């Protein structure tokens, strides 16, 4: 068999077939592409997919596109010629290469969720004393969390990077790290088994008996750190955007959405404006 001929056939097949598939599936002109700055299995994908299911009930022609990371998602979202949606979150927006997708007054459709961060350590140890005494300590952190939160606790307190919160917990159980900072849902899992003690939470109020970090770590500078997930748009007309906002408000009040938020210990605060999101970014410097 002639190789050039073989290459030629393969090229033809691999170019024509996807075009046929794409043309068949995109006949509708009013298609909205929802870019996902994460991968299936992650929180960003999960929330985007959850929102997609709800929006489909309002007859939106919505197509999920996995961009995989914020850099790719930002480029696709900003270059889109069609109506586009994107789930923007602090860690992504604070990143230098992704700063173009910080929600603005025009682009913000609605905030979806907010959550606070939890500090946990070993139950048999006096964790606060360890931090205050600036002993050499290792703190597990997701790759997209702000490292400054760890380094600000003391020059002997070092961060250790994990791919996600599940891997942090495995590392903690294996004894690799002394503390971890994670979202509320993951932190409480080990607390219930007495394998961890959570001793501080961001924000100004106690939650489930865990005191706010500002009380137990008075020198700590990142008290107002909030984890925010907001939906932003590109290429929507004013009317389309208004309609979308009203639909998302309906969704956020629905029992399904509330159950989903409750399960993950998220707060469904759609009233949070773009200013709050922008202010929160000062704590989310992840590249240093």
């Amino acid at each position, binding site marked *: 068999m002639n190789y050039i001929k073989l290459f030629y056939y393969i090229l033809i097949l691999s170019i024509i*077939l996807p075009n046929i598939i794409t043309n068949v599936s995109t006949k509708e002109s009013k298609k909205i592409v929802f870019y996902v700055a994460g991968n*299936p299995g992650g929180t960003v994908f999960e929330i985007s997919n959850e929102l997609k299911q709800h929006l489909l009930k309002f007859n939106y022609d919505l197509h*999920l596109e996995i961009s*995989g990371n914020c850099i790719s998602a930002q480029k696709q979202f900003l270059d889109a010629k069609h109506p586009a949606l994107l789930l923007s979150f602090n860690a992504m927006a604070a990143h230098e290469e992704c700063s173009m997708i910080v929600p603005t007054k025009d682009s913000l459709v609605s905030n979806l969720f907010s959550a606070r961060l939890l500090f946990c350590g070993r139950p048999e140890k006096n964790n606060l004393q360890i931090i205050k005494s600036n002993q050499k300590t290792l703190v597990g952190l997701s790759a997209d969390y702000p490292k400054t939160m760890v380094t600000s606790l003391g020059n002997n307190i070092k961060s250790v*990077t994990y791919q996600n919160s599940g*891997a942090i917990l495995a*590392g903690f159980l294996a004894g690799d790290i002394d503390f971890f900072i994670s979202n509320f849902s993951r932190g409480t899992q080990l607390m219930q088994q007495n394998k961890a003690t959570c001793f501080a939470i961001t924000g100004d109020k106690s939650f489930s008996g865990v005191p706010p970090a500002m009380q137990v770590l008075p020198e700590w500078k990142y008290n107002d750190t909030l984890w925010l997930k907001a939906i932003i748009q590109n290429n929507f007309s004013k009317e389309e955007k208004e309609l979308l906002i009203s639909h998302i408000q309906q969704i956020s009040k629905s029992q399904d959405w509330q159950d989903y938020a409750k*399960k993950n210990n998220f707060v469904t605060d759609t009233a949070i404006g773009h200013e709050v999101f922008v202010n929160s970014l000062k704590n989310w410097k992840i590249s240093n």
Partner: protein
Amino acid sequence: MWLLFFIALITGCVVGLLPGVGLLFTMILFSPFLKGLPPEQLIMFYLVVGGTSQFTGSVIASIFGIPGENSSIPASIEGTKLFKTGRLPEALSTCAIGSMIGTFAISIILIFFLSYIGEQSARFFNNTTQLLLFVVSSILLIVSSKKKFIGILLFLLGCLLSMVGFDQINNTTRLTFDLVFLHSGIPFGSLVIALFTMPYIYNYIEKKSEGKKISQGDIKVAGFTESWKIWWDHRWSSARGIVLGSICGLVPGLTTILSSNLSYYVEKTYRLNKNIYKKTGDLSSLISAETANNVGQLTSVVPLFLFGLPILASEAVLINLIEKGGFKVAGTALLQADIFTTVCFFFMLSAILAMIMSWHGVKYLMLLHYLPKKTHVWIMILINIFVLLVDGIVNYNLYSTILCFILLLPLGYILRKNDLQILIFAAVIYPTLELIVFRFYQLNFQ
């Protein structure tokens, strides 16, 4: 429960036969139908689909050389050699027996010692242990290749290709040359088809004779007693597969991939050192790998039962489904729910049924031997293109998949005479390995 079991069994068969459609995609696809089911049914569904797809995935990998699941790489290497020499029925029946024995052994061990094993392994499984497992498997892989220096270069090339895209440590892009379609990295489907299965097809075309010519009379299902006897001769390979599979099944992100690949390379190296490795297809190495991936499938859910901890993206989807049904998967909740024995019962049952299906189904697939070589080549090309499209569609990146595939095709042609499994293995493990090495530095030297 029984209806769901049979749906899972059929789904698992289909998932295994359709390379590119993994457990993660299946769970996402079935989410709307599984919502609200109790945890034992959901975990049973998850394990039965995963376990059955390991059986059928090996059949298709052995015949077409396409490792749809990364855990089928050993089957695509040894299985194809055995297929060419007409020994596939015997290979599949003995591997199916090995997988079933492995499934039974690990299920029974875990039913009695789940808590103890889980607690011990959680402590044992620190970053250094994980790094050691990766280093050992990489060294074994390179050592087992004929040209070791080329092997090292291919390993490095695999790492380099895997580096393209997003740098998870520094949160930036690398090696993308500002091309948007590379920002998410080279899609796995493009990589494996352009650099592993297409070179296999090139080599297949170039080879004049394909080993022993098979006549229609040769195509028969391997006998029951005969297969058990052959398996018994390789029982220690299965035993090694059970041990390595159960350990590697706990490695976050890799589970069955590391289970089958490490078991394969350990067995292959062991047999090469003893000068008993068969170049025309080594059944022992294949049995070890196939036993290990089924064992790894079950041990991968151990952290879920003991700590509510997902170590795979597909398990994160599973947890989400369980919690949507109102069951909070926190800590030991699943263990306390006392569902592990039920789940293991169905997992073992699925192993028996999958064994029978892959054992007897092979006689139909072996008919492919009678097709003219040209037709065989075209079937392989069309299946590869189909797999590529499915991979692109299910991962929502069809165009970058096609584009990367086209760009990598010439490289596959240039490298066709080399041991490309090293390159693919390196590309698969690199993202996890990179983080483990970086963490090793953070834990010990910062």
